């Protein structure tokens, strides 16, 4: 499995339909990932669109030497971080609408396959951002430690530490909620 790289190559060579294969692979996981940063689904979707726009208008930037998945998530992270940086003064405080909650649940259902992972996903909202990102990338987005490091601009060792500490933090959250977690 090449994580969509061959589809991207076909797209660059002129097969427009190949691009939709990449969208099918990454649309929902990417939105879900960006949502971790923005906390707003509509914004996450908008930024995810921008990631795919980058793939279309700057095909020369991907050199096919690393995973397309890592590349896409890296762009997603950068866009999310830049968005937060630009809008950090604008603190939108409010409750998600029922429609948004339903969308989020549906998204989560598509991305997170098992109940255990769903529990993890929910607990992630209560740990620090670095832990959240590292755990999301490794456990929910299925990136390797190296790939997660590339996305987060951290070394493999740093990601390992974050995952280790993040797991402890999540464990504490889940135990607080009454789950028995085996170490």
């Amino acid at each position, binding site marked *: 499995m090449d994580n969509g790289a061959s589809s991207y190559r076909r797209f660059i060579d002129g097969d427009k339909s190949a*691009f*939709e294969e990449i*969208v*099918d692979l990454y*649309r929902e996981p990417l*939105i879900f990932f960006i949502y971790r940063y923005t906390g707003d*689904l*509509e914004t996450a*979707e908008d930024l*995810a*669109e*921008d990631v*795919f*726009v*980058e793939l*279309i*208008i*700057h095909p*020369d*930037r*991907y*050199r096919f*030497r*690393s995973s397309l998945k*890592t*590349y896409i998530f*890296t*762009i997603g992270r*950068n*866009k999310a971080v*830049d968005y937060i*940086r*630009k809008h*950090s*003064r604008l603190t939108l405080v409010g409750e998600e609408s029922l429609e948004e909650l339903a*969308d989020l649940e*549906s*998204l989560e259902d598509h991305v997170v396959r098992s109940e255990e992972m769903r529990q993890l996903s929910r607990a992630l909202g209560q740990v620090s951002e670095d832990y959240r990102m590292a755990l999301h990338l490794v456990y929910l987005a299925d990136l390797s430690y190296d790939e997660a490091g*590339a*996305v987060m*601009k951290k070394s493999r060792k740093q990601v390992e530490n974050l995952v280790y500490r993040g797991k402890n933090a999540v464990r504490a959250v889940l135990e607080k909620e009454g789950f028995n977690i085996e170490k």
Partner: protein
Amino acid sequence: MKNRDEFIQSVWEKSEKALAEERAQKARRRSIYKLGAAAAACFMLLAGAAGLGGPQAVYDSIFGVGSDSAAAGSAVMEGESADGSVYDIEVQDMENTAADGSDDMFHGADVYDGATSMPSMALDGALNLGGLNDKELYGELQRQTEEASKSRDDSCKDLMAYVFLPTGIEIECYGDPDGVAMYTADEDEIMKYMQWFGSLPENQVLTTEEFNNLKEIPTGYYKFTMDCSVDAETEGSDRVFWLIGEISLP
């Protein structure tokens, strides 16, 4: 949330718009870039003049045998105007330039591989730099200038041409409590790629977070690292640029 087809439709619409905007910006940049690359080389020439054997030696090392003017003792180099015409840029004699060498304006150990002090730069209206005798700094800046000259499509490198431009190009600065950014025509592009490490005139080096937390953005000289991180393949290809000028809040 959009469904799959709506999402794809939206992506294509945004792409068409983005491509149209890029084409328009490139057309504007092309005329500016030519002048920028020449001026960047001019900057390098002046930067090296103080420390590398004088204008002639620097000129020859970059451009080979000099022109008649160079042979007469005052080095020149050629700049190219937007309309393609060539003109001479006279290199200023740096030997008598008073340089503020009392303070290290920048901490470079974390960037310049062991360089522990940076020469300070004084800014005049034109290129009037002095005291640059750090060969490692010069080498690094020269390398990056050469890289900028090679590529016109990479927006990271285009940015470098703007930054080095000492005069003639308006570098707009946008400051707010979240931080400071520089931008020219393509605000989004630059905001996307830049991270800031601010240096206060008192020689403090701030992390991006500390810089962003400043209540006021003081005027002065700044060093920043641009992270060309859209291309994950070149992750870590940070570049360091010197801001020639002042940042003042709008």
